[in-house]
């Protein structure tokens, strides 16, 4: 193997390297910034991510580089945009959130950036080992971030860490079986070998089940979801936002890449497994979200239900389904970050984000209530918001592929889910305000949150009214997955 065949191409990694560079820069800068001024690091990180954003679509290489380890195709570029956008949003709202929590620190910001880098490695990994490295970098960062909230963080972080470590083990075990039957960890090479395998290869089944379980843990699919409500509740709310959007999107990116590129020959087997997981996740998430009294926990279960719906797009294994997964991930980044932003802002500061805190919000803060209502409507999947369009594309791909019953289950779970989304709206608009005054917000708070809220709201509406442009990009982005 000579050097040329390794195809060492620095450009394919450039956006990732920029994020890592930014993280290191923030790390160094942290030493020079006095304790009171750590918020400057937040601005540097968020604006840095925004500046990196335009570079992502500029460096697209359809050929795998670094000996097939990395692929910077349109598919990974799409997900990189999702990660950068959601992480920039999350960091931006962190600045004020941490100030109110009284735990401003520099490490928060650069660990956030490292988590983003981990997600980007996952999206552009073309090799099972590569994706594992990215997954671990992301997970390790999140274990720390979840624990950063004083008081409640430790419990969630411990639970997340213990279960997360176990799931990583399971994933690695699955990867070892995959290597065992194919002799390679490269996704493309594995695809070529798998085609020649007999149907009843036990190791292959083990690999499918174990890798599937490892990924299902990261997307918090039933029955691998138990960590997520506790971790979400314990974490600082902006971290929860990134955890529910970014880490999930990253897990979907590798899920789709591994199953659609490496193992399409065994679609019949893995689609049955994912069918069951998807259906159970949708129903479980929607039903269990109903009795929740804490907004964050409710959003955690709602996020479980959404994962089930997105999983449908993987089950169908078609270009339409995959593009729907991408579209959904982007839409979810907007609407869910928006919802968490409102949750962070509406909480009374003592740490509890109870649903009842929202009572009568509309009469106190009409714009805040309006934004929350918009995000809830979108999460519930009602037109003309983006949440509906995303759900529609997934449903369309399922119906097209003939998965009628899965589509019916999705519809039923959506109908159940309406109940708890509507309840948030009802609390805000149709109940009277009780209890103490909301604390006055400074102009600074209003501006930082306002920017995020307006951008996420615009995204939520624009992607719902005119989805064509982004959908076309998503369809082109999944092209590489289905042509090989």
């Amino acid at each position, binding site marked *: 193997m000579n050097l040329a065949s390794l195809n060492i191409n620095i450009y394919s990694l450039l956006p990732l390297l920029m994020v890592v560079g930014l993280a290191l820069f923030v790390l160094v800068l942290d030493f020079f910034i006095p304790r009171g001024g750590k918020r400057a690091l937040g601005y540097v990180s968020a604006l840095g991510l925004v500046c990196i954003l335009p570079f992502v679509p500029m460096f697209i290489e359809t050929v795998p580089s670094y000996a097939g380890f990395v692929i910077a195709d349109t598919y990974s570029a799409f997900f990189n945009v999702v990660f950068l956008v959601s992480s920039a949003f999350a960091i931006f709202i962190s600045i004020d959130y941490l100030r109110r929590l009284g735990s401003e620190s520099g490490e928060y910001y650069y660990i956030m950036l490292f988590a983003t880098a981990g997600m980007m490695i996952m999206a552009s990994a073309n090799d099972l080992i590569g994706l594992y490295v990215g997954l671990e970098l992301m997970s390790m960062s999140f274990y720390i971030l979840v624990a950063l909230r004083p008081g409640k963080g430790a419990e969630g972080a411990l639970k997340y860490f213990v279960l997360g470590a176990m799931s990583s083990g399971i994933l690695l075990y699955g990867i070892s079986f995959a290597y065992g039957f194919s002799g390679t960890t490269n996704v493309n090479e594995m695809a070529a070998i798998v085609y020649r395998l007999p149907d009843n290869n036990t190791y292959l089944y083990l690999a499918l089940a174990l890798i599937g379980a490892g990924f299902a843990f990261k997307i918090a699919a039933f029955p691998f979801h138990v960590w997520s409500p506790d971790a979400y509740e314990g974490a600082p709310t902006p971290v929860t936002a990134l955890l529910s959007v970014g880490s999930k999107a990253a897990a979907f990116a590798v899920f789709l890449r591994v199953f659609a590129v490496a193992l399409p020959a065994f679609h019949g087997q893995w689609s049955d497994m994912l069918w069951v997981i998807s259906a159970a996740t949708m129903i479980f998430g929607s039903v269990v979200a109903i009795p929740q009294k804490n907004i964050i926990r409710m959003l955690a279960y709602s996020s479980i239900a959404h994962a089930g719906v997105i999983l449908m797009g993987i089950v169908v294994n078609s270009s339409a389904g995959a593009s729907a997964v991408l579209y959904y991930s982007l839409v979810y980044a907007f609407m869910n970050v928006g919802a968490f932003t409102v949750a962070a802002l509406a909480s009374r500061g003592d740490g509890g984000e109870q649903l009842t805190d929202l009572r009568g919000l509309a009469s106190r803060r009409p714009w805040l209530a309006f934004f929350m209502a918009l995000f809830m409507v979108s999460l519930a999947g009602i037109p003309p918001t983006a949440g*509906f369009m995303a759900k529609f594309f997934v*449903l369309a791909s399922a119906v097209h592929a003939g998965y*009628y019953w899965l589509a019916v289950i999705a519809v039923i779970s959506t109908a159940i889910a309406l109940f708890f989304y*509507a*309840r948030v709206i*009802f609390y805000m608009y149709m109940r009277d305000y009780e209890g103490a005054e909301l604390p006055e917000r400074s102009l600074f708070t209003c501006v930082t949150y306002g920017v995020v809220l307006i951008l996420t709201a615009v995204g939520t509406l624009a992607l719902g009214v005119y989805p*064509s442009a982004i*959908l076309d990009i998503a369809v082109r982005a999944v092209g590489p997955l289905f042509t090989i």
Partner: protein
Amino acid sequence: MTDIIAGFPVLSIIIFLPALGALFIIFSRRESVEFIKWTALGATVLTFIVSLYLPLTFDAANPSFQWVEKTVWIERFGMSYFLGVDGISLFLVLLTTLISIICVFASWTDIKTKMKGYMALLLLTETCSLGVFMSMDLFLFYIFWEAVLIPMVFIIGIWGGGRRLYAAIKFFIFTFTGSLFMLLGVLALYYYHGKLTGVYTFDATVMWLSPVAPYIQWWIFIAMFLGFAVKVPLFPLHTWLPDAHTEAPTAGSIVLAAVLLKLGTYGFARFSLPLLPNASMEFAPMLMVVSLIAVIYGALVTIAQRDMKKVVAYSSVSHMGFVMLGIFALNADGLKGSLLQMINHGISTGALFLFVGMIYERTHDRQIGSYGGLMKAVPVYAVFFLITVLSSMGLPATNGFIGELMVLIGAFKAHWIYAVIAVVGVLLGAVYLLWLFQRVFLGELVYPGKGEIKDLNLRELCASVPLIILIFWIGLYPRPFISGMEASIDILVKRFEINSKKSMLDTNRVAAAPDHSQGGASK
């Protein structure tokens, strides 16, 4: 797909004028209540005036869509922004624009809090319902169909009566669930039609040229039925209606009764019949029986009510059963009668809710038992109420008579037994309506509260006189209405007949060559 914008986009203007008004209202100050009210009134009146352009330039002999606007929206799925109005939707559009003005009048003093949000939502409801009646692209139709829910839920939930939360959430969940199944049906239809013809499109006018195989229609019909029937509402899916109607503020009830209920029956007539002809034919006897149950059951339940608003609410179940009966008689007379009855129900039930709202505003009591002999105190109001009651029960010379007669003729043509049972429903209608009038307006003068009870003021006259005029106009000279819808309904019936034969032929062909059928039918 090509863009067709024939000159002036009048339909888009009609749809989005109220939304523009809502935008003005959102950015006005919360305290300037007068400005908000006048803006809302201005927007609805302007919309109505623009919508009068339609009947003036309407070509009654032309059965196809007029003022068509078509632009590509999402090319990948063959979705387009496709608006058009024909004889079937023309009158529903006019009804919507007229009723919206009346709603603004009805809310003038009825709504005491948060006027800004209320008026904005009312205008958005108008925009979305107009969109439903005008869109000929099934996906666009669905968007408007779902979007209309949100403002309505807010109107019930924020400005409603004592049990408003319960009513709002029940309404929301019932209709949302039904619509989701409809979405699945639309999707399945889209893919099967695409597979059959090679053209993947949501354009209904293209889709009904080649209906899918009957056994597929059967499933799609059930899915779409769930969406439409909940909105109608057809027995036994009607339970959200009494709650929603009773708890909603007056204008909310008027919009619900006069416009939103029509969305369901319109959907059946417009989409179910031509797109799924064989399934419609197969389900028709069953649906007629269910409609008859709704007519009789609705009437019997109405008789037992003690709350005036509940009387009107339950009577809707009965009346909408009539409309359904006419549609699934599957002949031109029944359809014409149904369409006319939709308009009539909009006018007379809208007026009844308006009048109940007026008396409630004066006394804050809706119990029938609290009133008596109001004829002596408020004669103008009493006369208007009487006219509406007579129209609602279908007395000759009022609009209700023409509609009910045509529906009965249509039902008779299907089978005489349907007509006979339906007549019983008409009689029961007379019972509860006349009894209501007798208890409230005749006899000894009794009303709750102290002080004088005032007759209609100028604003209330403005709101009610147009409806009274329409009641007599349609009752005495229905010709313009019937001839306006005739051509479109004839072509609908013809299309229905052709399609039901065509897809039977297709099935035979498929049965003869079985190797490439059934693909992807189950999984």
